């Protein structure tokens, strides 16, 4: 699948005639580039001794689980000693804590950082938050929450994600006009309902309104800048199993590698074209009970995490190999005066620290990239039980959002010291 040249011509025309919105990409001068962030999640924690960098500052070695990152170690910051604080425990508490910085109980949900940052940039890109999930089994283990603490369901079908951002629909300006007309009509009916209902179902209708505006904005802008075509989906992956009783291909664990490549490809290109600033790339789900054949272990990730033996090392190293490739892909993408990796901060997190212990102390966190924002990579940083809320604050500040606290578990809020060297 690839998209046509025609569309790019249209986009250039749209840009030249001043049609549509002036997105940040167009407004920025050459050589400067917006900051982006990718939240990468892999399930079920790690084995700390096999995960955390041994040594400090630039003098460290990587054990087996993170060994695949050796070749990109100069782009990574290996963090240890960060805790996810609060009463919520195990997998279920961990997925809540990770990006919300709350106490991890379902009664005290808060907004997650990925959604929060997406809202900040929603007027500047066509997709405030690209929220992707690679082959979950059961889809109720959320890490992303909206302003009301309602879980935000991610996109699981990479072809749908591609179509939405790069697909053929915008090739045809007449079709775009028809779509806008349908959405306008929908908007006027929605507004009639809102007027009639006042505060009743206000949150629901406000969310609906945001979705309408986002889509209209996207159609009117006909996407930001011109995106070079690339050979998307070289293996010809298709979704044909659409019936109720079938498991669609994008949820087929035996093809996880292919599906992950597609999701990753969409994410990198969406960032490169500045169609979004915030990506969540969630691998599978917490308590992942499928065998990942490509990883080379006969055990499930969750089963292996409990045993904390070689199988878990193999599986986790497989995820890290994928993480290394993502870093390399970003580095190979020019952006502004440097590379996309310079302008993108990657955050790797999980729901647990020690997968066998089910605790949240000394989390397997890694930062990568972000050199243009002062992130001094190539180091191993040791902290002493610092709440990870500080890391969330630092990520927000990297994105230019000047907050001092995020979540409610840090009694002396502020950013994480030492990231800039």
């Amino acid at each position, binding site marked *: 699948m690839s998209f046509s040249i025609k569309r790019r011509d249209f986009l250039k025309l749209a840009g030249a005639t001043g049609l549509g919105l002036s997105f940040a990409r167009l407004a920025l001068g050459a050589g400067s580039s917006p900051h982006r962030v990718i939240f990468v999640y892999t399930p079920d924690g790690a084995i700390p001794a096999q995960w955390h960098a041994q040594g400090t500052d630039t003098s460290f070695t990587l054990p087996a689980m993170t060994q695949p990152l050796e070749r990109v170690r100069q782009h990574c910051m290996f963090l240890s000693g960060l805790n996810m604080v609060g009463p919520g425990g195990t997998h279920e*508490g961990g997925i809540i804590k990770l990006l919300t910085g709350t106490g991890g109980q379902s009664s005290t949900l808060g907004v997650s950082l990925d959604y929060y940052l997406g809202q900040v940039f929603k007027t500047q890109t066509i997709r405030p938050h690209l929220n992707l999930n690679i082959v979950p089994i059961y889809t109720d283990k959320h890490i992303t929450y909206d302003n009301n603490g309602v879980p935000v369901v991610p996109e699981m079908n990479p072809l749908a994600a591609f179509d939405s951002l790069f697909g053929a629909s915008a090739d045809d300006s007449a079709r775009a006009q028809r779509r806008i007309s349908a959405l306008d009509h929908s908007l006027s*009916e929605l507004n009639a309902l809102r007027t009639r209902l006042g505060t*009743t179902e206000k*949150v629901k209708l406000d969310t609906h309104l945001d979705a309408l505006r986002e889509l209209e904005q996207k159609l009117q802008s006909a996407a930001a800048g011109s995106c070079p075509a690339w050979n998307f989906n070289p293996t010809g992956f298709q979704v044909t199993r659409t019936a109720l009783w079938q498991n669609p291909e994008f949820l087929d664990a035996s093809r996880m590698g292919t599906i992950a490549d597609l999701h990753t490809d969409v994410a990198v290109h969406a960032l490169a074209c500045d169609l979004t600033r915030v990506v969540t790339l969630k691998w599978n789900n917490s308590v992942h009970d499928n065998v990942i054949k490509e990883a080379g272990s006969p055990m499930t990730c969750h*089963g292996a995490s409990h045993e*904390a033996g070689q199988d878990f090392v193999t599986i986790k190293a497989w995820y890290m190999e994928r993480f290394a490739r993502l870093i390399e892909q970003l580095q190979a993408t020019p952006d502004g005066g440097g590379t996309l990796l310079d302008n993108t901060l990657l955050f790797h997190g999980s729901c647990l620290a020690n997968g066998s212990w089910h605790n949240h*102390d000394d989390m397997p966190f890694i930062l990568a990239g972000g050199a243009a924002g002062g992130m001094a990579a190539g180091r191993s940083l040791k902290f002493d039980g610092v709440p990870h809320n500080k890391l969330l604050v630092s990520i927000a500040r990297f994105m230019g959002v*000047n907050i001092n606290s*995020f979540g409610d578990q840090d009694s002396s809020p502020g950013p994480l010291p030492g990231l800039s060297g």
Partner: protein
Amino acid sequence: MKKRIWFLAFACGLAAFFGGRVSAAGRCSANYAIKSQTASGFTAEVSIVNEGRALKGWTVTWSMPSGQKIKKFWNGKYKQKKAAVTVKNLASNRNIGSGAAIGFGFEASYKGGNDLPASISLNGTQCSPTPTPGLACEASYVIRDQWNTGFTADIRIRNDGPALAGWKVTWEMPDGQQVTHLWNGQYVQTNARVEVGDLDWNRNIPTGSQIEFGFNGNHGGTNTAPASLNVNGIACANAAASPSPSPAPSATPVPSPTPRPSSGPSPTPSPGGACQADYRVTSQWDTGFTANVKIRNDGAVLDGWTVAWDMPGGQKVTELWNGQYTQAGAHVAVTPAEWNRRIAGGADIEFGFNGSHSGVNAVPAGLTLNGSACVTNSGGDPTPLAPGAPTGLSAAVADNAVVNLVWTAADAYAQGFRIERRTAGGVDWALMAETAAGAQSFGDGTVAMGNDYEYRVYAFNAVGNSPPAIVSASLPTLLKYGESQYQKQGCASCHGKDGKGGFTNKPLIHFTAAQLPSLTEIIRSRMPPSNPANCLSNCAAGTAKYIVEVLAAAASGGGGGGGNACAGNPPPGGRALRLLTRLEYQKTVNDLLGLSENLVHLLPEENRVDGFDNNVATNLVTSIRLEAFLTQAEALAAKAVQQNWNALLPCTRQDSACARQFVETFGKRAYRRPLTTEEADTYATLFGQGSFREGVEAAITHMLVSPNFLYRSELGEAQADGTYKLTPYETASALSYLFLGSLPDGELVSAADQNLLDTPDQRIAQASRLLSLPRSHGQVGQFVGQWLLGSSPYTLPEKDQAVYPRYTAAVKSAMSEELIGFFDHVAFESTQSFPELFTANYVVVDNTLAGYYGLGSPGGSGFAPVAVSDGTRTGILTLGAVLSRYANSNESHPFKRGGFLYKRLLCRDLPLPANAGFIQAPQPDPNATTRQRFEFHSKSDTSCYGCHQYLDGPGFGFENYDGAGIFRASENGQAIDASGILRGLETFTPTEEVSFTDLPDLSRKVAASPTAAQCAARQYYRFTTGRREASSDSCALDSFLQNYSVNGYNLQTMLLGIVNAPGFASRRADK
């Protein structure tokens, strides 16, 4: 301020010691170290080295010099009398050998200063102080940018000593440099000496943390960096930093983690001084704000002016007064209104505007007047950071009438707090109050009894809002409140639990409804006798109501709840718009357009709650959903026009009358109600722009993305009693989506047209009719699947084919059909009663599944009952779908199966495991049976076993079935032990134990359990209402369960009875 800095001077020096006094003794040495400190408290550790002979028992004394008060102590027994502190040994650290040390520590509060004690004594002898450690900080001074006469420098200080709660950094400028502007601190320069103090938000520097500030300065040609920097008087080590200006190290500007000065370090300083600007955000809400701009003209008189600035965060001006504005991208330009063109020298003009923002509302860096930069002041007291979330939020209900909220501000940034409230489980927050910064409590007297509320409190300032703190409060109905107060106030202890007189022989059961006011007054003024002020308005009224309506009624043989129990209770459900689920969407568009499309996996998944896909509150139209709906709408409209043209059109002449007729008839089905004239008019305009066919296609497309199509309305119409009643069309949809999962059929629409869905009989008649349609079975199957699996009945997991090669796609599919078919068989063809779901001695299978289970063929190609004589299949617990769903991809999983039994079949919510920290389960023997391995795991720690005692027993009961649902008698060569203990079946207390020998035995016990039977109906109630029940549902739910129970747990009664449960067709008003 001064005091604080003074204190810090010693804190930085890390226990700089006892004011330099030297003790005479030398028999001991002591060290008193402050480990951390906040604005009002600190932690200290004291260590004493005994340099004399060995001691048996010790006493350490000192005097607190500045009123410090110890709160918590460890490793010793302490007494504090005013300033005098005396610490005695514990039994465990009584002996100190010669040369040995003791240590203890404490938490204490302080006010103002936190001076160190002048001396410390051991057994009456004054100890000598130990030397203080060396440097406690590291500093870097980097000249980031430099031009002919100016420069910008960044300073970073890392605190390597104990935590600081305030700081002052000083240095000497070697070349006469002058600081002109400094950020992230406040500075004073006296000749060469520069002194920088902290700001509120960066005064704390934890150990190992750092602070940064920066400044612009002038230099006279030479610009050497200072030799060293001091923190609180202590010289810091120099960090490796290049003191000379390095040419721009990076093309991209370094983003600042901290606020930057309002004017950048520009090499050509702007003239400035000709004007002054003041940009002030005067109020701010979720997405909008109001700002006021004031400009003073310090130059010559102006006739006409342009004030301009750049919005830093994408803000848009939406309305402006006292001027005219244009905005292009970030750039805003304001020109005069007619009357304020002229600004005299030294005079002001002022204008204001409303704008929108996207969460962060940073103020512009600078404003210009006629192109010249003004000295810009962004708010007199800038608060550069959004405040943190309030902490410690709690809610207490007073007299069931007022909810009192209390919280603590997280920091000093809050300008005020907003308090919002919603009904629990709802989504809409209503603003209750906005308080000043100092307020940390709020009383809400507008609550209504019988409701659960959630409150959120967040702090705000001009920068933005904090995340909210959330708390909930529950107010029972007056009757329930009265019941609880009857116990709590001690009424029962005198009058008896039953009100028949108790040991005082003062019966209450003779009170009648007519005497309710007088009884209330008696209670209010005289009860309880020990403290008559303790039970006033609601307490008295509720207790009286409980006495009359429950105790007296029960004594006279009446009462006991019943159908009227809910009269007067508000309906439990709120007014709602219910988004179609993927499957409802698919069925609806297929019915509407005469298609048979598979769309489920082309739409984004639902946000399940309690396993159900139709939750009212969490399924929202997000952009990915809307885009999928739009894409489908276009494709479906095109396909329908192409395939079903004749069936779609109610008329043949392609004229405007036919267009109107199409809009009205098709629209009524799509919207599931007649269109309003206005709506139909709008649709009619879609015709006449292109061909008639294009008009039809456009109308269908538009309707399929209309909120009136995507949501089914349960808003109702207002009634005289303040409640809302579903309209006949809404009732028709409620029935149709419940039983068919699709839009109402012709009969239902016609009944709605004639208002024939209003009475219980009419609703039951329609429900029975719908349930008799074959296609209702798939919909009942949706309930059964979601109840038992917490997902679509068709979502069975994949398995490791190396372990379970026989578990094929065909087997999976057959398992899903079995699940649906089995329930269907029990409910509609067999006994119709709940127990059979767990005691069936047959399976409902096809040839594929019969072969898989090793049972005889049902004959034919479809699903049919096959008898099971060996007890290997006994209903729900042995369904292949259930067993495969609750297992790993390569093994069975007792915990998942035990959890399934508790959560799905007994409606018990097991708490999530706490954040226990260090639970290292030992490695089990890989050759053991699954049961042995899991048991080893869960019993390895008592904190796990607290919950696992519930899961394990029933979980092990399933062990005769492998992870793909196949029966097995042994595992790894060992016989399966499927016996166990089920704890808390009816009471959820671990002491209630039911032993079972195997799964058939466990099944029989579940079959006989009222808790299990009622749980099935409770799950159905959740499925029907699209939400988790709250306390306000208790009356309606009890009434529904009662009806089902008195009918012998008849499943058809359950399925049908819900349509006449209180609240099915009514909704409460929003609070």
